C-alpha cells in the first residue's frame, strides 16, 4: 500500500470514528444521567437527518452562503429533536419512574419503532441524498489531496466534544449532571432539581445527535428512513465498549469501532464480517472487564 492510500484510510477512520464517538457520547449522556438505555435514540438521529435534509434543501435555493445555511439547519434540527426527546421523556419514560427498569426500555423500543416508521410513512422509503452542507473543496495535505469536508467533519466533531467537556466540567448544569449521574437521591437532597437535569440530558443527547447527523450527512450523504438504526447501534456498542455512562469511554469506544469498521474489510475476505469482528471485540472486552474499558468497577456492598 502506498502512503497516499494509508493517509486516505487514516482520514476515513478519523471521520467515521468521530461520528461514532459523537453518537456514543449522545447515547452515554442520556444513560449516565437518566439511567436509561434509550432505544429511541436511533430514531431521533433519523429525524435529525430528515430535518436537515428538508431544511437545507429549502434554504439552499434561497441563501447563497453555505456555512450560514449549515448553522441554521443545525439549529432547526437541534430544536426539533430536542422537542421530540422531551415529548418522549414526558410521555413514555416519566410515567414509568416507579415501574421495573425493563418497562422503560421496552417503552423506548416502542417509541423508537413508532418514530422510525412515522418517518417512513411521511417521507417514503426512497433513499435521499443530503445536500452538501459543508462546501466540498480539496486541500493538499503534505502533497496529498484531501477533501476539505472530511477534515471539517473531524474538526467539528472534536470541537463538539471539547465544548461538551467544558460544559460538563465547568458549568453549574454540568456539575449538577455529574452529581445526578453519581447518586440521584443524594443529588436531590443537595437541592438539585433532578427532574430538570434529566430533561437537560435528553436535550443534550438530541443536540449532539443532530450535530452527528449533520456530519454523517456530510460524510456519506445517502440515507433512508432506517438510517438511525445502524449508526446508533454501532454507537451504542461503542458506548458499552468504552463503559456506558463514561464520557471518555464513549469517545474511545467510538474510535475503536471506527477503526474496526475501516480495518476489518481490508483484512477480511467478506466485508460484512466486520460486524462479527466488532461484536467479538466487544464480547471479549466485556468478559474480561464487565463494565467496559473505562467503566468503574462496582463493588457490591453487603
Amino acid at each position: 500500500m502506498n502512503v497516499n492510500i494509508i493517509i486516505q484510510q487514516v482520514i476515513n477512520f478519523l471521520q467515521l470514528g468521530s461520528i461514532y464517538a459523537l453518537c456514543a457520547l449522545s447515547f452515554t449522556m442520556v444513560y449516565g444521567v437518566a439511567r436509561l438505555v434509550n432505544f429511541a435514540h436511533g430514531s431521533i438521529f433519523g429525524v435529525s437527518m430528515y430535518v436537515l435534509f428538508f431544511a437545507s434543501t429549502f434554504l439552499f435555493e434561497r441563501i447563497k452562503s453555505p456555512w450560514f445555511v449549515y448553522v441554521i439547519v443545525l439549529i432547526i434540527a437541534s430544536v426539533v429533536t430536542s422537542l421530540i426527546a422531551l415529548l418522549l421523556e414526558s410521555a413514555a419514560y416519566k410515567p414509568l419512574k416507579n415501574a421495573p427498569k425493563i418497562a422503560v426500555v421496552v417503552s423506548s423500543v416502542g417509541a423508537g419503532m413508532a418514530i422510525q416508521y412515522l418517518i417512513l410513512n411521511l417521507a417514503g422509503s426512497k433513499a435521499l441524498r443530503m445536500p452538501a452542507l459543508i462546501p466540498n473543496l480539496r486541500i493538499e495535505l503534505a502533497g496529498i489531496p484531501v477533501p476539505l469536508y472530511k477534515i471539517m467533519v473531524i474538526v467539528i466533531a472534536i470541537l463538539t466534544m471539547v465544548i461538551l467537556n467544558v460544559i460538563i466540567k465547568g458549568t453549574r448544569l454540568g456539575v449538577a449532571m455529574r452529581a445526578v449521574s453519581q447518586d440521584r437521591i443524594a443529588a436531590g437532597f443537595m437541592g438539585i432539581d433532578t427532574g430538570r437535569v434529566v430533561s437537560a440530558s435528553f436535550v443534550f443527547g438530541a443536540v449532539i445527535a443532530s450535530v452527528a447527523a449533520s456530519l454523517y450527512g456530510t460524510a456519506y450523504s445517502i440515507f433512508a428512513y432506517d438510517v438511525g438504526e445502524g449508526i446508533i447501534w454501532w454507537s451504542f456498542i461503542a458506548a458499552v465498549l468504552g463503559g456506558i455512562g463514561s464520557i471518555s469511554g464513549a469517545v474511545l469506544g467510538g474510535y475503536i469501532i471506527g477503526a474496526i469498521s475501516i480495518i476489518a474489510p481490508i483484512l477480511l475476505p467478506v466485508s460484512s464480517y466486520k460486524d462479527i469482528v466488532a461484536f467479538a471485540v466487544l464480547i471479549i472486552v466485556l468478559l474480561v472487564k464487565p463494565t467496559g474499558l473505562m467503566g468503574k468497577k462496582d463493588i457490591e456492598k453487603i
Partner: protein
Amino acid sequence: MTKKNYSTGKNEFLWQLAILLAITLTLIALKEMRLVSTSFLLILQYIGIYAILTLGINIVNGYLGVFSLAHAGFMAIGAYVSAYLSKYFFTDITMFAVSIMAGAIAALLVGILVAIPSFKTKGDYLAIITLGFSLIVQSLLQNARFVGASKGLNNIPKFTNIYWVFGCLLFAVFITNRFVRSKYGRSMQAIREDETASNLVSVDVRKIKTIAFALSAFLIGISGALIGHLLGYTSPSAYGFVNIVDGLVMVYLGGTGSIVGSIFGSAAWQLIVQLLKQLDTWRWVVGGILLIFVMVFLPKGVFGNMELDDLFRIIKEKINRKEPGRGIRNG
C-alpha cells in the same frame, strides 16, 4: 409466585393441562370439520409457535430476570438446523420430530455457551452481548453459502400443521411448568431478586443460569423449527432486530414470569399484528405507540408473575373485599 406451597401446585397444573387439551381438541375439530377459514387456522398456528417462543424467552427474561436479546439467534439456529435436516436428510414427515429435536438441541448447546457471559456481566452490558450474539448468528447465516446466504433456505417441506404446533406447545407448557415449580425454578426467582444472597444461601447461581439459558434456547429452537416448516422458507432477515423486539413485546405484554401470560402475550400480539396489517407500514407506528401505552398502564404486563389461579383469587378478593391488600407484588 404467591402460592401456598409448591406441592399443592398440582391442581393448578391439571387445570392448565385440561384447558390446553380442550383448546387442542377444539382446534382439531376446527381443522377437520373446516369450521374456520384456512387463514384463521394459519393465525392460530402463528399464535401457538410464538407462544413457545415467548415461553422460552420468559424463562430467562422473566423468571431468571436477565435481560437477554439472544432469542433471535436461538430461533435462527433451531430453524436452520431443522430445515436443513428435513430438506436433505429426513424428507419424510415421520421424521419431523427428529428434525425439530435436532434444531432444539443445537440451540440448547449454543444456549449453554451464551450463558457464560451472564456469570459476570449484568444488565445493559449483558443485553448488548446477547444482542451481539443474535446479530453475529444473522451475519454468519448471511454469508454461509451452503444455507443459501442472504436468500436463505427455500423449499423446506411444509410439515408444520396445527397438531404439531399445539403438540409442541403442550410439551413446552408442561416442561416450563414443572421446571419453574422445582428447586430450579425457585432458585431462578431468587436470583432475579438478589443474586448475591441466593449464592449465599447455597444456590449454585452459575449452574442455574446455564440450565435456564439451555432450556430457554431449547424451547426457542422448537419454535424456530416449527416456523421454518410452516412457511416453507427461512432467511437471515427473519432473525434481526425487528424480530428481537417482536419477541420482547409478547413477553412484556403478556407478563414476565408467567406461563399463561406467555400464551396470552403471543395471542394478543399476533391478533394485533393481523388487525394492523390493513394499516400497512402504519402498523409499526401504531404498534410502537401501543407498546408505550401497555408499559405505562401495565408495566408488569397483563399477567406479571401471575398464573390463572392467582388471577381468580384476586378477582375473588376484589369481589369479597374482605382481605384487602394481598395484591401480587406488594403483598
